[in-house]
Structures are given as structure tokens and as C-alpha cells.
């Protein structure tokens, strides 16, 4: 077996994110379908306005958050596969050398789609359990007649079947593309930086600075994840605080939960793979007498800047999103309070963010401290 079930266990990140996406989608799409089915029974003017507003909110939320999450799962999946091939390139090279075709090996990568399936099922089921309370919440002012939760088979298929199949196909295709490297390159663990990194660009930088730079250059996807993690934290926490006033407490709790789950999964995921990808380097540096703190600063420190950038983008994003929602979507619903940028909240979130980020970083530098020199050499 080339790729086993145990490899998919590591895909917990994708599982969580796919689950979140399906959760959000199930809530809003199921609601929108059931609401649309009873459009004719809405008689009051206020009810109609509320109907319009809720349908539009549903669309915006589903498109923005769901789209974001799907994009992340795709990037994450590709990242996992690339990482898997990079770290197992020797074994895969041997298989190719023995005469297995690239496609024959790539076929096994379908199991990576399995985690998406599990995530989607979990997301769908948990959303379905929550739907009754969600419907009640949406209709708290009783502007519509009572809405019943209906099960829609095609929606279940759309949210579970399609992603599972799509991601499996994507995994196989991508693995196939990456496995087209010549056998020797796989065996020698040649990687792409060889051709991409300009040679004499950083002539007289001290080693530690250089290492920080090359750690980041070598794994650009991780830069995206770290920034994305900060983005989620910043956008979702601030949005949830504003939503408390604009919409409801439950919505706020939902948004903040999804945001934090996303932020932590992606951050843990990326930092773990930074540390794992650099164990040999760190062990060698330790042999030579580099201090723990030098190692962790060189390997982890470069990401801090990107997390701040992610935070700023997240702040702008949530402001723009809420402004659009309030001015366009809720335009004809009278009672929505005005929405302005909340500087105090932003500052509080930023402080919280820095604290969280540094604590997590500290945790990972402790992990570096526990790496044993010998375990690397025994391989």
C-alpha cells in the first residue's frame, strides 16, 4: 500500500475545514430552500422585507465563508500531497524505478479525498441537528409562518458527494502531475528550490538570517496558511463582536467558533509542518552548538510578519463585508443599527491575537527543544 489510511489521519485540518464549510452551507442553503418554498404565504410588508434580507444574507454568507473555506481546503489538500510526495520521494522513486507507472501510484492518492468525505458528513449531520434552533432563531420575530425543516436529498449529495468525489479526483490528478519527475530526482530527493532560487542573491547574509529566508521560500504555502490563520482570527472575532449588535448572539457565537477553529487548525498545521520539515536542519544546528532559541527564531520567526499582514487584511475584509451587508442587504429593513468601524474592538482583538500567536510559538519552540539529536541520526 502506497498511501495508507494512517496517512489520512493527518488530514484532520482538511476534515475540520471541510466540515465547517458544509456546516455553514447546510444551515443557510437548507433554510433558504425551505424559506423560498413558503414565499407565497408571507403577507405582511415587514415579512417580505425580512424575507429579501434573509435570502440575500444567506447568499452572501454561503458565498463568502463557504468559498473561502473551500479554497482553503483545496490549497491544504494540495499542500498535504506535495508534502507527502516530498517526504516520501525516496519510496516513491523506488516504486517508479521498479516499473510502477506514475498513474498507478497516483491512483492510491484517492484516499486523501476520504477525509473530505468524513468532514462533509460530520458538518452536514451537525448542521442538520442544529437546523430546528436555527430556523427558530431566524424567525424570532415571527414575521413568517412557522418553517419546517425539510430534508433535501440533492442538497446532501451536493454538499457531501460532490466534494468527496471532486477532492479524490483532484488528489489523484495532482499526485500524478507531481510524480512526473524523473525517477532519479525522486530518489535523490531533489526539490524545486534548486532551479527557482536565484543563486548569488544573498551573498553576505549571516547564516541564521539566510536560513530564516530559505525556510520561508521553500514552503510558500505555509506563508499563506499562517497569514490565513491570522486573517480568520482577525476577521471572525471582530465580525462576531459586531454581529452581536447587528444580528444575534447565536450568530455571533457561531462565527467566532468557526473563526477560532479555522485559525487554530491552520496555525497548528502549518507550524507543525515547519518544525517537522526542518527537524534535520535543527538537529544539525544543535550538533554544531546553535542555541535552541537561535534555531526556533530562524525556523519560526519569519512567519510573524505574515501573520500581521493576515491580521490587517482580515480587519479590512470584515469591515467591508459588514458595511456591504448593512448598507445593501439590510437597506430596507428599518431597525438595523448603524455600523461603524470599532477601533477599540480592533485593538483588543489585536492584543489577543499577539498573545495567542506568541503562546503558540512558544509551544512550538519548546517542541524544538525536545527534538533529540540522535533520533534524527538513527533514521
Amino acid at each position, binding site marked *: 500500500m502506497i498511501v495508507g489510511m494512517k496517512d489520512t489521519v493527518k488530514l484532520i485540518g482538511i476534515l475540520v475545514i471541510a466540515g465547517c464549510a458544509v456546516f455553514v452551507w447546510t444551515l443557510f442553503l437548507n433554510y433558504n430552500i425551505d424559506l423560498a418554498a413558503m414565499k407565497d404565504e408571507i403577507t405582511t410588508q415587514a415579512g417580505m422585507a425580512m424575507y429579501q434580507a434573509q435570502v440575500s444574507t444567506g447568499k452572501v454568507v454561503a458565498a463568502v465563508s463557504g468559498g473561502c473555506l473551500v479554497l482553503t481546503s483545496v490549497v491544504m489538500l494540495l499542500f498535504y500531497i506535495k508534502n507527502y510526495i516530498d517526504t516520501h520521494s525516496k519510496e516513491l522513486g523506488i516504486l517508479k524505478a521498479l516499473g510502477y507507472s506514475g498513474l498507478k501510484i497516483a491512483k492510491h492518492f484517492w484516499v486523501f479525498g476520504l477525509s473530505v468525505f468524513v468532514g462533509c458528513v460530520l458538518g452536514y449531520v451537525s448542521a442538520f441537528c442544529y437546523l430546528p434552533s436555527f430556523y427558530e432563531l431566524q424567525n424570532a420575530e415571527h414575521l413568517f409562518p412557522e418553517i419546517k425543516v425539510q430534508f433535501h436529498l440533492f442538497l446532501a449529495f451536493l454538499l457531501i458527494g460532490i466534494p468527496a468525489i471532486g477532492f479524490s479526483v483532484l488528489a489523484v490528478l495532482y499526485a500524478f502531475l507531481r510524480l512526473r519527475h524523473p525517477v532519479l530526482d525522486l530518489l*535523490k*530527493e*531533489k*526539490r524545486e*528550490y*534548486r532551479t527557482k532560487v536565484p*543563486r*548569488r542573491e544573498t551573498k553576505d547574509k*549571516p*547564516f*541564521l538570517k*539566510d*536560513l530564516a529566508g*530559505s*525556510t520561508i521560500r*521553500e514552503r510558500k504555502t505555509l506563508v499563506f496558511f499562517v497569514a490565513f490563520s491570522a486573517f480568520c482570527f482577525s476577521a471572525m472575532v471582530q465580525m462576531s463582536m459586531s454581529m452581536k449588535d447587528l444580528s444575534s448572539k447565536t450568530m455571533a457565537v457561531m462565527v467566532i467558533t468557526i473563526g477560532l477553529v479555522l485559525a487554530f487548525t491552520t496555525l497548528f498545521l502549518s507550524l507543525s509542518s515547519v518544525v517537522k520539515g526542518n527537524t*534535520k*536542519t535543527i*538537529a*544539525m*544546528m*544543535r*550538533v*554544531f*552548538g*546553535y*542555541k*535552541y532559541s537561535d534555531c526556533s527564531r530562524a525556523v519560526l520567526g519569519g512567519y510573524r510578519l505574515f501573520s500581521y499582514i493576515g491580521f490587517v487584511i482580515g480587519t479590512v475584509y470584515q469591515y467591508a463585508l459588514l458595511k456591504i451587508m448593512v448598507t445593501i442587504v439590510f437597506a430596507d429593513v428599518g431597525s438595523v443599527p448603524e455600523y461603524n468601524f470599532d477601533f477599540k474592538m480592533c485593538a483588543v482583538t489585536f492584543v489577543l491575537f499577539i498573545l495567542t500567536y506568541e503562546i503558540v510559538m512558544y509551544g512550538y519552540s519548546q517542541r524544538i527543544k525536545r527534538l533529540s*539529536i*540522535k533520533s534524527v*541520526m538513527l533514521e
Partner: protein
Amino acid sequence: MIAISDIVKSYGNAGNKNQVLKGISLQITDGDFVVILGASGSGKSTFLNVISGLERPDSGSVVYGTNDITKLSDEKLTQFRKDNIGFIFQQYYLLPNMTVEKNVRMGADLAGNREYREMINAVGLENKKGKYPSELSGGEQQRASVARALAKKPKVLFLDEPTGALDEQTGRQVLDYICRLHKEYGFTIVMVTHNQNIAEMANTVVKMNSGKISEVSANEKQKTAYEIGW
């Protein structure tokens, strides 16, 4: 002077204990060229790791001058390695995402050595400075790791089967570079190998047999890397 006494080291837990080093004592004089000979699995690498401060023994002491490194805290031990130790492994362990020059710089920066390019030239890699390890042959990679270890100006150079992955010709070449640099800089060499012929290059030959030293002998006359058999 390195005074090693009564080193004991085991792996595994109480029920399934494997004593790898069974009370080893040895004295190594400064500037000496020591070869540790022994069959595979006799505990050579473990011994080397213990006396170089990469691993802690269960008991016994390793005293450099007056400094017992088995008693040092982790930070002090790191500092000790930084100031004193160079390491060369059978598998090179060059950093794959850095050029030869940067790999050598990893050692040089620790000693504040700005003339590290000389060391690259000294191992004959001046034309390969900008190459990545995957673009080098085994012999070239090992020479790069020699340059990396010596660029930090160690007082003691530890080598664990440095030619174990090389063919005869490149093996001799690497040993020859090491020998010449040893004469020039005068550091102490402790080299582990299972190749009996290499022992003829050393001043002192230590034979190890299942966790114990079975014989220590001095060579009157050392052969060069090109005079020994293989």
C-alpha cells in the same frame, strides 16, 4: 587532554535493558589522531556521541582539561559544543536547501570566522560553492561537510564512519584532505570506522568490542591516505 572514565550507557527500560557501553575509560592527548575500530553494533557511534557531548552517559565522566561535560546543563553543553567540537557523519547531513557556501557558513558563523571561503578552497570545492548538496557527488558532499566542520575552528573533530558511504578513490581523497588539514591546524581527531586499513593513518588505535575497549595501541609511523590498503 580528554580524560574519559568508566562510561556506562544503556538503552531501553528496566525489563529490556541493552547495555551498549560497559565501563569505558580512555585518555586522548591534544592534537592526537585517534581511530576507534570495531565491528558494526559494537557501540562506536554511541561512544563518540557521548564523548562529544551529543548524548549523556548513565554514569562516568568526560573531562576536557578540567571541564567535566557530563555535569554541564543543556545550555552550557551547547556552548561547549559551539566552542570546541566539529562533527562529520557518514551521511553528510548537509542542509539540503542551502548551497555549499551557506552550509560552510553555518559552521563559520559560530566561530565568527569570516575567512570561511578559504576552507571551501582547501577542500577543493571552489568551483562548487553555489551548488546545492543534491547536485554534488558523495565525495564532494563529504568534503563540503569537512569544510563546514572545520570552518568553525574546532579543537576536536569527531568523525563517524566518514568514508562509509564512499568508494575507495573518493574515500582516500576525503581522508587525505582531513589529514592535511589536521597537520595544518593541529586539532584533535577522533574517528570511528570499521575499516582496519584506515587505522594505519592514526597515531593511536582503539579497538572496541561489544561495548568495551579491547586494545589500545600506538602507531610508530602513520601512513598517508594513499599508502594504506582499502
